């Protein structure tokens, strides 16, 4: 393996002035770096950009015999079929509402948890609180849904025993249309609040203590100090995480929804991504569901761009 020239840095600055052929020379000099990149970049091109090529079947009638390139073009037929289908309204509403409710209800919880940890006088208790709330994050979705189904079971689950003890009728939570979204979102909070609070706790520990002192001197109560010192201190982090969340607005929790889904709660649990799985992979309607998937990611991308732009203008924080 060739060693890099002694005056690499100096040579780099010189060639930057010369541009053009200098770039090639600089690249040749760093050939071993490109050699390292060979496998990863090839992987990115195949496994991330390769599917983009296959995406064209959304505008074709994919025929396995003719292959992706050989299948005939049908324009926006599949999109139209989707928009006019019986499922469209239900899928769109479920996808939007589950994500919107998650954003409104689940997003602030880790922030509140971080504030609680920050306000606890006993630091060791704060550590305990953090460590315990992390635990569910490390369990798999399958296990989480398993716990949900035994915990909420109509015959043996403690929740229904409590309801019966209070004189109510047991509820079949997991098979209920009305309960699906509540269970989904609250169990997400249960699983992830501790983990998601880490970043906020770190940000809070970075807030200048002198600001708290100054607020105290001005006679601010502890709630006021939270409102006027703690929260403003972590706003940039909140904004970044909010943008990232919205960037994945349309596909949050797909695996878990799939596991929680059954014929009885389909009316509220059927979302675009699970529909793509069941209709595409299981029933083999590749072109139709590729179109639906594309529709889904276009909404995602649009939302991300919009929110990022909005955040850059108003909060002066953005992803790029």
């Amino acid at each position, binding site marked *: 393996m060739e060693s890099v020239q002694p005056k690499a840095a100096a040579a780099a600055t010189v060639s930057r002035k010369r541009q053009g052929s200098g770039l090639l020379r600089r690249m040749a000099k760093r050939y071993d770096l490109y050699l390292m990149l060979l496998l990863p970049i090839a992987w990115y091109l195949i496994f991330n950009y390769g599917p983009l090529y296959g995406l064209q079947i959304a505008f074709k009638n994919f025929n396995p015999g003719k292959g992706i390139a050989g299948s005939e073009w049908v324009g926006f037929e599949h999109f139209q079929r989707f928009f006019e289908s019986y499922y469209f309204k239900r899928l769109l509403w479920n996808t939007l509402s589950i994500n919107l409710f998650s954003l409104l209800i689940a997003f602030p919880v880790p922030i509140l948890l971080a504030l609680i940890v920050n306000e606890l006088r006993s630091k060791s208790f704060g550590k305990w609180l953090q460590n315990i709330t992390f635990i569910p994050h490390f369990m798999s979705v399958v296990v989480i849904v398993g716990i949900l189904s035994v915990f909420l079971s109509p015959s043996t689950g403690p929740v229904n025993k409590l309801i019966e003890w209070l004189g109510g009728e047991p509820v079949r939570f997991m098979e209920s249309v009305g309960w699906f979204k509540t269970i989904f979102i609250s169990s997400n909070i249960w699983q992830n609040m501790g983990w998601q609070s880490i970043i906020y706790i770190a940000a809070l520990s970075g807030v200048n203590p002198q600001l708290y002192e100054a607020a105290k001197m001005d006679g601010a109560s502890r709630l006021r100090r939270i409102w006027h010192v703690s929260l403003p201190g972590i706003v940039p982090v909140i904004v970044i995480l909010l943008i990232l969340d919205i960037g994945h607005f349309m596909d949050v929790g797909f695996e878990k929804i*799939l596991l929680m889904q059954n014929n009885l709660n389909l009316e509220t649990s059927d979302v675009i991504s699970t529909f793509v799985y069941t209709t595409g992979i299981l029933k083999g309607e590749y072109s139709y569901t590729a179109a639906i998937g594309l529709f889904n990611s276009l909404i995602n991308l649009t939302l991300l761009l919009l929110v990022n732009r909005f955040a850059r203008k108003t909060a002066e924080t953005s992803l790029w």
Partner: protein
Amino acid sequence: MARPTTVKSASDGRVFDIVVNVFAVLIILVVLYPLIFVVSASFSDPAKVLGGEVWLLPKGFTLAAYENILHNGKIWTGYRNTIFYAAAGTLINMIMTVLAAYPLSRPDLPGRRLLMVIITLTMFFNGGLIPTYMLVKNLHMVDTVWALLVPGAIATYNLIVMRTYFQASIPWELQEAAHMDGCSNWRLLWNIILPLSKPILAVMVLFYAVGHWNSFFNALIYIRRESLYPLQLVLREILMISQSDAVDASVGIEDKILLAESIKYAVIIVSSLPVLVMYPFVQRHFVKGVMIGSIKG
């Protein structure tokens, strides 16, 4: 909750402290209770669990559910497969991520910006489920172990975290000095960069390994052969589809239903145990990983 008034008194602070502590205790109870319930139920007499007698502590202590799992071939196969997927998968993940992160961390790599754009874009846009599935199918990876190892070889988020770490924590002067001494990039990476990056490498190994341990969706779409099923797919069958199959055929039908019920609790424990046992020891690293990740790259 105490209203903030213009004049704060000592009692205002005390009430506030009490409220905060009460909330903290409540949160701990809510997080822990379902976990304790599952553990207790797994050690309880299935009849007592079905009768709704188990609230907090085990009733009619028995290891029957665990004994049954011990004799369950599917769970063993799943366990063995998952250990393999986690080990081989993480190895591939680490090699690929390091190979990408190191060159991209070098300020003197021509075209670095463009390469970063190519990589970062994939976080926001991809072909989606169906085209990805078709690609993997066309590569003849469906129903082979490769489908679980190769398509997820790099997690872009982890790559960016590692690159940021290389940039931020390893002095560029050190790399330049090594170059002066005629050290090749491969040797530099192996002898200097990697030994200096142990914390981030540990974090990444953990992230990837836990990811493999817990993943089920790729196996769900790509794996048909039961002999290749990872633990999570076996679990899914036991927890959500047909429970009674999991039980030894030697027991009677009524006991079968009872045992099927308590086996659910036991498999939850058995499958989560490795990660949860590991967790107290590595928890600090995880937190560090999240922190490093939060540095804007």
